[in-house]
Each structure stands twice: as structure tokens, then as C-alpha cells.
């Protein structure tokens, strides 16, 4: 019963974030960027400003709702890049073996040793701040786990009868990888992707908080929190709501990932605590 609870509660939180992102123009009560009104700055939560207003008099509720678009875009797109890189490298390394496997494994070990946030920071330094840079930086730095699992699965699966049969029937390498190997490792890869999306959202918030991600005045949850840092005494609600939004979105993805793992990848419960 407990694993169903994970799935439903997690899915619920995530669905809320997706709804906020899709319906942002409907849900927002003010303009998230241009709605500045210095006469009404730093107002506590109330009927006009549900989550209060920030130092420039912008409505925090509207900014949080629009912020969901940025967070989810970064989470989904960068994780997609990671999944594709990790899966392609992992399957080919595991299936072909040889020097290619040595090369991929070496690269994976190097990537594992560099903390992903630091690596993303370095890439942001090269590309400069902004949404596109974030997608690239976070998409290139978190594929190692996917790669390891895909490689291990490919190595285990390639000696299975049905893969051998496909080979005898004359299937090419590409067709074997796509038709035989990939569907049989999809479960664990989906679980990693779900958990990785949460990680990407946290990393986007951290980079934007450091001033290297989404630039003001655009409403990213991370950059809203960096405004809040300097005004924590006067405007505590500015810090509270964007942080809660990040927390519940990531919590949703983590619970969803746990729940999916129980269903899709039951053997791995001890492998991925």
C-alpha cells in the first residue's frame, strides 16, 4: 500500500507544478515581470497579493506560477539530454565492448569525480547566463548514472537468447540496440530520469541563486531566492514561497521516482537506496 501512496502523492505534487506551468497566464493575477509598482512594494500576503509582493512591488504568486515554466522546462529538457547521452553511450559501450567501452568507462569515471554542480558552473562560465546555457550545462553533466545502468544492462542482456536470436536472424547492431535492448532496460532508465529531473530543478535553482542562471527580471524560483537573501528580515515571504515551490516540485518527483521504481524495477530496491 505504501508504494502506491508514494506514486499518488508524488504524482499529485508534480501534476500541480505542471498545471501551474501550463495555466500560468490564467492563474497569475498580475504581470510577473512588468507588474512592478514601487508604491506597493514589500506588502505581506493578503487579498491583493496572495503570496505578498516583492521589493519592487511585483506579485509573488504570479512570479511563482510563471517560475514553474522555467523550472519544468529546465528539468525536462536537460534530463532528456542527459538520458539520451547516457543511454547512447551506455548501450553502445555495453554491447560493443572493446576500446569504445574503455573510453566510455574512463570518461564516466572522470565525470563522476567532478561534482556536477561545479561542472555545470564551469560550463555556465563559458556559455554565459541564460536559459539556453542552463539546458546545455545541466544536460551535459548528469548522464553518468544513466550511462552506468544502461551499460550494465546491455552487458547482461546481450547474451540472452532473444538477443542472440535476433542476431542470427540478421538484425543489425542498431536494430538490436533499439528493438531488443532498449525496451528491456527502459524501467530503470525511466526511474533515473524521474529522479534526475528533480536534481536538475535543484541545480537550476542553485545556479540562478548564484546569479549565473536565469537573469532578473525573469521569474525563476532560484533568482527570486537570491533577491530574498538580501531582504530576509524585511520580506521573509519572498524567501518562503519560491522555496516551497521548489521543495514540493522536487519532493513530488522524488516520490514519483520511488513509486515507479517499486513497479518498474523491483530488484533494484537495494541497489538504489
Amino acid at each position, binding site marked *: 500500500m505504501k508504494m502506491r501512496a508514494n506514486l499518488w502523492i508524488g504524482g499529485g505534487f508534480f501534476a500541480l507544478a505542471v498545471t501551474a506551468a501550463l495555466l500560468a497566464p490564467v492563474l497569475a493575477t498580475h504581470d510577473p515581470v512588468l507588474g512592478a509598482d514601487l508604491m506597493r512594494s514589500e506588502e505581506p500576503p493578503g487579498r491583493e497579493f496572495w503570496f505578498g509582493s516583492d521589493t519592487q512591488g511585483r506579485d509573488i504568486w504570479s512570479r511563482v506560477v510563471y517560475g514553474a515554466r522555467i523550472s519544468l522546462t529546465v528539468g525536462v529538457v536537460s534530463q532528456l539530454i542527459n538520458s539520451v547521452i547516457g543511454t547512447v553511450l551506455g548501450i553502445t559501450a555495453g554491447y560493443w565492448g572493446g576500446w569504445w567501452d574503455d573510453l566510455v568507462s574512463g570518461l564516466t569515471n572522470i565525470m563522476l569525480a567532478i561534482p556536477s554542480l561545479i561542472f555545470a558552473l564551469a560550463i555556465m*562560465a563559458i556559455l554565459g547566463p541564460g536559459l539556453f546555457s542552463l539546458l546545455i550545462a545541466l544536460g551535459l553533466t548528469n548522464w553518468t548514472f544513466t550511462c552506468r545502468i544502461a551499460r550494465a544492462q546491455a552487458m547482461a542482456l546481450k547474451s540472452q537468447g532473444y538477443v542472440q536470436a535476433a542476431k542470427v536472424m540478421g538484425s543489425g547492431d542498431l536494430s538490436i540496440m533499439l528493438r531488443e535492448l532498449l525496451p528491456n532496460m527502459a524501467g530503470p532508465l525511466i526511474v533515473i530520469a524521474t529522479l534526475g529531473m528533480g536534481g536538475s530543478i535543484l541545480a537550476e535553482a542553485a545556479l540562478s*541563486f548564484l546569479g549565473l542562471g536565469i537573469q532578473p527580471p525573469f521569474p525563476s524560483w532560484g533568482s527570486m531566492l537570491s533577491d530574498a537573501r538580501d531582504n530576509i528580515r524585511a520580506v521573509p515571504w519572498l524567501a518562503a514561497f519560491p522555496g516551497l515551490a521548489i521543495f514540493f516540485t522536487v519532493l513530488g518527483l522524488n516520490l514519483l521516482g520511488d513509486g515507479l521504481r517499486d513497479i518498474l524495477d523491483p530488484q533494484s530496491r537495494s541497489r538504489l537506496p
Partner: protein
Amino acid sequence: MLRLILKRVVNMVPTIAGVALVVFVLFSVIPGSFISSLMDDGRGGMDPAVVERMRRELGLDDPVAVRIVRYLGQLVVGDLGTSFRTREPVTRLIGQRLGASLELTFAAMGFAMLVGIPLGFYAALRPGSLIDTAAMIAAVSGLSLPKFWLGLMLMYLFAEYLHWLPSFGYGGWEHLILPALALGVSPMALLARTTRASVLEVINADFVRTARSKGMSETRVVTWHVARNALLLVLTTVGLQFGALMGQAVVVEKLFSWPGLGGLLVDSVVQRDIPAVQGGILVIVLFFLVINMLVDIAYVVIDPRIRAG
């Protein structure tokens, strides 16, 4: 034993060289440079002659291959180059900040281990109980919290509202508490989950049933058989988390104005002070590798099976 340690140290060399190479190549393809970042600070164009001289002085005129070989050569003798920004040796810049980073990392990991491991252990001994459920809800929440937001909330509560602790800065133990908590909560959560999972795995093992059936007391079964075997699995997580923590500290250090490597890295990234960024990354990677090497060695010390095999 000595041979094992030597072997581990030698194994680290290719990884370090690989990391240095990857980082170096990454920064060699940067379109902008330190000099152009000086130029677009709003003070208008720079004299081309000055730009030319700076490029020569900083060694940016040589081909990439020459620079890589030179950098790796310096690395062998422990020279991380000279900072573009302050013209100081990078090793000195890092040396000034490494102490504070280590202090924060050790404090955070100490907290994570002292709370996370007993929590996971306790939860596993009573699976399905209220305490187990609460501990696992706390653990998954701890993993979902942005560290800097947690830090911000702690700062508001304990510094701005209750005035119990200083809100930022570096000094005595009272300055350490909030940053260490903010940094330590997510490894604590992960350790609690790992410990619970590995205790649950061990507790149904044959040797535990044997110990029980021969009349061993429950306390002795748990401390002697379950704990020893479960903690072996936990050790891997400790190593990985510990090693990664210094990198994760960047945001927390920035939030609490903690004078560690994180601040140095962020400032250097913003100003494209490449030698400082490379040096900072290498030191953080080295820390990760050393911690994991120590964990590998600890395995051998703790587990006689590995020693024999």
C-alpha cells in the same frame, strides 16, 4: 597494506590527469576570455597594445596543445599556475580557503552521520512503525530541499528572528552551526535511507537467523552481526557523499559568506579567472578521490573477506 595504499594512489593519477585535461580543453574553447571580460565591464574599449601585452604575459598566445602540456607539467610539481585576477599563485589562493572549506565539510558530514545512521538503523528495526514512516518522510523531504533555501530559512529563524546565532560570516563554532546544518541535511537524509535499506537486507540473512537460533541475545545479534554487516554497505554512501560535499558547499558558502573554496570558484567563474577555476575544481576532485580511497582502505580493514580475497 602499504602496497594496497600505493596502488590506490597510483590509480588516482589517470583520473586527475583526465579531469585536468577535460577542464583545460573546456576552457580553451571559451569564446570570451579574461581580457574580454575586463573589457566589457562598461569602462569602454581597451588599448589594443595593452590587450596584446596582457595576452603575452598571461601566455594566451601559445597554441592550446603547448598550454596543455605546460599546465600538466606544472601540475606534476604541484603548481596550479597564477591567478589572472590577483596575480597570486593559485595554490596560495586555495591554501587561504581550504581550511574553512574542510571545516564546513567535516562539520556537515559529522552531523549527517551522527543523525542519519542511527535514524535509519532505528527505523529498520521497527519497519512499518510510526517512527519508521516519520523517519522516511523526513528523509525524502531532506533530499528534496534546496540547500540554500534551507540555509535561508535557518538564517531567518535562528539569526534574524530568535537572535541566537550570527546570520553569516566566519569565526567561532557559532558561525559554523547554520551552514553545517544547511549542508548536512541532504547527506543525512540519504544516509538514513541507505542505512535502513541495508539493515533490512542484512536482518533477514541466514547468519542472523543462525545467531538468533543458537540463543544469542537480541542486542548482541544487532550490534555484532547486523550492524557490522549493514554498516559496510553504508560506508560506500558515506564516501560518495563526503567526497561530493565540498562541491555542493558552493551555494551554502555563498549564502553564509563562508570564506571557503565555493566563494573563490564562483567569483573566479564570473570573472573568467581560468587558472583559479581549474585549480579549485582540481582540489575538489582530489578531495573526492582521496575520501573514496580512504573508504576503500577502510573496507579492507573492516571486512576480513576482502582482505583475504
